[in-house]
């Protein structure tokens, strides 16, 4: 059992008790505890269950590398799964629950997987769940979903707030251990603007725990002095609880600051995402201790040696009364000494090395600790937690020489530099034989815009071992980073520490090295995903030679800890199985973020009303006040219809159509794109942009135009008005305005840059109202000021003038088939003009109408809609728009493409109208079936519905669609299977797409 020591704990404030609950059980810790240290202090060694076999799991580590202690935190709108207990600072009222077990942590049904584990080897999912196909849906998937899965996903809307921060600095130092402090100190002295970030709540990293001396004082003291000095410098900024999450091209760095996790407060941001541009980045990210692969290394009570030292020294926690230390290097001896100093028993240090000798080893012996060299832990004894270890020779196969009773095991397989951030943006690694780890290859760093490296690793993250070398390296890297940014103001003396004499590490990838199959099947590599030595060896036998393939086949390193503990050990086992050197096998790819960051931080402020900017027409408020049922169109919001009290959306739409056809409708058309094209070559330019001939258009006239991409496909349409010889106004679709303006500019700037043409997007400069219906002219005449008779302003003409008090430009164009005037006024007069029209129209039955009425009326007239009849694969010829394609022009964008054989194929589906036999509305997107099936066993098709509505004018369903040989098959009946799962297909007759007023008598009056 773990417990709290009577004294000690350098980070604890024992005067402040903190209450929290774990699985509903009330527990007590102290200010300064992490959830992990508090759980251990309360004797809670079992904290979770593993992913696949549901084996009992305890805390292994003390930091971000923890694979096991994942918990649900908070509740309701603040519930969050998969939080690491080791990086969760304790606060009063914290509520944590364990994960991945049913029905309870102590008794878990899923543990049956454990006994079935020999039937669940690597690649189990791939091998077992292949066939039969229906079994997936009914057997395999429900089983996997029930037994797999970590924490519970939150159900409520996140109650917290988040924000983004931007920073530009010369030197960003990631990691606030002694290396980061030394680097920041020297870079700051040189005059660089420095930002130093540290993921934990404490400066100094491991040095204060390890008991180093710097500049003649205890490390903790040096850390305090240095932090104080750095904080006094105006060019140095320090941030704790701020993790370097990822390094990207050209010095872009993402950092994740946890502001409120340790101290939740209403109204303040919980997390902050930093977006940093740094000229130079120093990664002083430290190292992570490797577990050793011996049988039973996953039992609760087996922990990393460094972590045990942390719990004893930082938090005054005893991992157990009797701790066996097992190691292949000197560092673990510090744990034995720390335990001993805390008054705890260390029955033995099991050292795999045959005959190591160093002052540290001697110190352990001097304290009376038994040091067993050339020995191994053959296996850990115990069911739910450590009860003892069987010791064997490391050189042998695991025959027990003696049993030692103990309740904790401290293991150390050596230290691996944290090279993640170095690697994110292309930094390469070299294999260090001496320390058996990968470290940054300084000759191949991540490259910046200028072709030089912009990331430097510092300290142990750079492979420097021992306090003296760490400080020297970090000091030099800080200086070099500042110099690379052009700063060389001052140079401080480097901090110094005494040299340490250590016995060399000996790589140990299997313990004991000759362990047989039974032991290897109990040696865990990945604790969270349940990947064992035997799984990786199986993958190698089955031909998975690439480390990336092995990773995916076995799921090694694919859990939420991303293999921080398991990568190197797994790699070593794979390379041994393949009989290759470790550097030849290589590593998997390190990808950001370093540890998971919250979705809230990624979203930042962009949620709710400010998720994205909202564009409003001048009449927006009127719509909002008069029952608008909104439809988002690009960044605009347009009224779909205006609902009256007690009216359904469908009823409102039908009313609006009927009223516009019978009386008078108003449409806010302000969102339509309005692009001014001006210059001596404007006509020539528009001839290239449109399929039609625009250069022959007379001033005062309008023409409906089509635009295609260079690939021949229809991309936008709209009415072009010629203002004068040099000036055209091009209308675009609402969603197309910015895109078409950019499209024009692209061709003008990059292809025809010598043409005399200028463009301006005037969309928001004008409010535009379509005054539509048989009474349209009457209401405008009543307002007075302008002759709008057919003689003065014929169909497809435009004129400037005055209506009432308003300076207007009137276009006589119609998208509804009715008499229609589209009237533009200056944007700031838009609302007044709208109000004036409503007032004048009162006697004519005026009603505004929305986008759905607009759509229905255009469909009744057979007018196409970009995005309905077109989808990026449709050419104008498919839509019967040949009349809008100039035969005289030698060129326009898309012309050559439309000459390709596939585009001229007579079998292309073409636009027709569709009339259901029973008058119902065809399902949107439905396909017309054809006889037989294709090679994939799918039903053959011969057409599809592109637009479909209930027409109030005809009181029946009408639709448009693209049908093979459609225009030649008038009167034929097609079958459209339902899209909602209904059985009976809908039958529809092929008809002309123009359902209403085919001769245009209504609009041309």
């Amino acid at each position: 059992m773990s417990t709290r020591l009577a004294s000690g704990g350098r980070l604890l404030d024992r005067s402040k008790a903190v209450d929290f609950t774990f699985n509903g059980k009330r527990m007590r810790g102290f200010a300064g505890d992490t959830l992990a240290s508090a759980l251990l202090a309360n004797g809670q060694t079992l904290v979770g269950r593993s992913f696949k076999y549901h084996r009992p799991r305890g805390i292994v580590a003390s930091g971000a590398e923890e694979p096991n202690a994942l918990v649900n935190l908070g509740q309701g709108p603040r519930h969050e799964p998969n939080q690491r207990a080791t990086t969760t600072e304790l606060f009063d009222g914290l509520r944590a629950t364990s994960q991945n077990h049913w029905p309870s942590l102590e008794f878990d049904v899923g543990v049956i997987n454990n006994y079935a584990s020999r039937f669940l080897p690597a690649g189990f999912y791939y091998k077992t769940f292949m066939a039969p196909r229906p079994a997936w849906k009914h057997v395999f998937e429900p089983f996997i979903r029930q037994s797999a899965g970590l924490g519970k996903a939150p159900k409520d809307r996140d109650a917290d707030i988040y924000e983004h921060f931007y920073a530009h600095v010369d030197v960003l130092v990631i990691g606030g251990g002694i290396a980061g402090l030394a680097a920041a100190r020297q870079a700051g002295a040189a005059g660089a603007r420095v930002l130093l970030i540290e993921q934990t709540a404490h400066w100094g990293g491991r040095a204060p725990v390890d008991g180093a001396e710097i500049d003649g004082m205890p490390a903790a003291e040096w850390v305090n002095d240095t932090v104080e000095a750095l904080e006094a410098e105006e060019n140095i900024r320090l941030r704790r609880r701020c993790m370097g999450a990822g390094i990207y091209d050209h010095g872009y760095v993402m950092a994740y600051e946890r502001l409120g996790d340790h101290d939740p407060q209403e109204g303040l941001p919980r997390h902050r995402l930093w977006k940093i541009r740094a000229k130079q980045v120093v990664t002083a990210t430290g190292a992570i201790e490797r577990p050793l692969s011996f049988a039973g290394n996953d039992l609760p009570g087996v922990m990393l040696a460094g972590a045990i030292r942390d719990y004893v020294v930082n938090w005054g926690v005893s991992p157990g009364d009797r701790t066996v230390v097992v190691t292949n290097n000197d560092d673990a001896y510090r744990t034995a000494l720390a335990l001993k100093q805390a008054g705890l028993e260390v029955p033995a240090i099991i050292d795999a090395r045959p005959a190591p000798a160093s002052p540290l080893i001697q110190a352990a012996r001097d304290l009376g600790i038994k040091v067993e060299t050339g020995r191994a832990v053959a296996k850990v004894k115990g069911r739910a937690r450590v009860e003892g270890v069987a010791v064997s020779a490391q050189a042998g196969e695991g025959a027990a020489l003696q049993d030692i009773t103990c309740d904790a095991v401290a293991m150390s397989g050596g230290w691996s530099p944290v090279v993640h951030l170095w690697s994110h943006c292309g930094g390469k690694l070299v294999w260090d034989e001496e320390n058996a780890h990968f470290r940054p290859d300084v000759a191949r760093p991540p490259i910046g815009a200028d072709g030089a490296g912009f990331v430097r690793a510092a300290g142990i993250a750079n492979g420097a071992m021992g306090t003296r070398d760490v400080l020297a390296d970090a000091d030099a890297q800080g200086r070099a980073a500042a110099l690379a940014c052009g700063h060389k103001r001052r140079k401080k003396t480097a901090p110094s520490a005494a040299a340490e004499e250590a016995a060399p590490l000996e790589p140990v990838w299997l313990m004991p090295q000759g362990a047989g199959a039974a032991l290897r099947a109990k040696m865990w590599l990945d604790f969270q995903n349940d990947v064992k030595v035997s799984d990786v060896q199986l993958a190698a036998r089955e031909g998975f030679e690439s480390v990336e393939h092995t990773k995916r086949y076995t799921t090694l390193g694919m859990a939420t800890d991303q293999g921080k503990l398991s990568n190197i050990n797994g790699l070593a086992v794979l390379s041994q199985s393949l009989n290759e050197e470790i550097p030849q096998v290589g590593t998997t790819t390190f990808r950001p973020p370093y540890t998971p960051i919250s979705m809230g931080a990624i979203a930042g402020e962009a949620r709710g009303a400010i998720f994205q900017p909202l564009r409003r027409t001048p009449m927006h408020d009127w719509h909002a006040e008069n029952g608008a049922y909104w439809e988002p169109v690009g960044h605009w919001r347009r009224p779909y219809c205006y609902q009256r009290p007690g009216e359904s959306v469908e009823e409102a739409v039908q009313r609006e159509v009927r009223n516009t056809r019978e009386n008078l409708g108003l449409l806010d058309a302000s969102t339509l794109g309005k692009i001014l094209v001006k210059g001596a070559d404007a006509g020539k330019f528009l001839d290239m942009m449109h399929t039609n001939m625009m250069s022959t258009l007379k001033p005062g006239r309008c023409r409906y135009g089509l635009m295609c991409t260079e690939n021949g496909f229809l991309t936008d349409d709209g009415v072009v008005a010629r203002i004068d010889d040099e000036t055209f106004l091009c209308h675009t679709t609402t969603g197309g305005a910015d895109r078409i303006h950019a499209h024009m500019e692209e061709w003008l700037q990059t292809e025809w840059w010598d043409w005399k043409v200028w463009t301006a997007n005037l969309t928001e400069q004008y409010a535009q109202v379509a005054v539509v219906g048989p009474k349209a002219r009457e209401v405008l005449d009543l307002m007075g000021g302008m002759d709008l008779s057919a003689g003065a302003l014929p169909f497809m003409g435009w004129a400037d003038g005055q209506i009432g008090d308003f300076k207007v430009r009137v276009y006589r164009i119609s998208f509804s088939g009715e008499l229609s005037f589209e009237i533009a006024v200056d944007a700031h007069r838009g609302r007044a003009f709208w109000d004036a029209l409503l007032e004048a129209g009162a006697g004519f039955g005026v009603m505004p109408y929305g986008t759905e009425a607009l759509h229905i009326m255009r469909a009744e007239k057979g007018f196409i809609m970009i995005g309905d009849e077109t989808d990026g694969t449709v050419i104008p010829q498919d839509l019967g728009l040949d009349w809008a394609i100039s035969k005289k022009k030698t060129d326009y964008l898309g012309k050559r493409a439309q000459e390709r054989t596939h585009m001229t194929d007579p079998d292309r589906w073409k636009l027709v109208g569709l009339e259901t036999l029973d008058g119902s509305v065809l399902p949107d997107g439905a396909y017309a079936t054809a006889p037989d099936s294709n090679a994939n066993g799918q039903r053959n098709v011969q057409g599809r519905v592109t637009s479909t509505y209930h027409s109030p004018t005809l009181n029946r369903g009408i639709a448009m669609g693209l049908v093979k040989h459609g225009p030649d098959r008038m009167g034929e009946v097609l079958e459209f299977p339902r899209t909602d799962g209904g059985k009976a297909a809908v039958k529809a007759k092929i008809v002309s797409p123009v359902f209403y007023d085919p001769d245009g008598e209504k609009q041309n009056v």
Partner: protein
Amino acid sequence: MLILHCPYCGVDADETELSPGGEAHLKRAGPGTPDDAFERYLFHRENPKGVHFERWRHASGCGKWFHAARCTVTMEVFGTYPAQVTEPPQEICDRITGKRPGWSWGAFS
């Protein structure tokens, strides 16, 4: 997250201000072009591991199109220049030669 210098407004623009426009120095092929040449114009693109010429638009800035010469492997930028040219300026080519002797890209080297 690249930073590219806009040769028009002089801003060192963050990638979030820019929109990419694919390969630079395409020569438009219109009516009368044989099928294979038209296919090359429309679809075939350089995809080099190393020196590359691209089009970018300072979309959330001055709105201008420009060209960038960069290395697709190291992200090193050799230079940017206005889009109103049919080939890279000599000065840019010389700079690339200094850093990547023997380079070639499309018709240029």
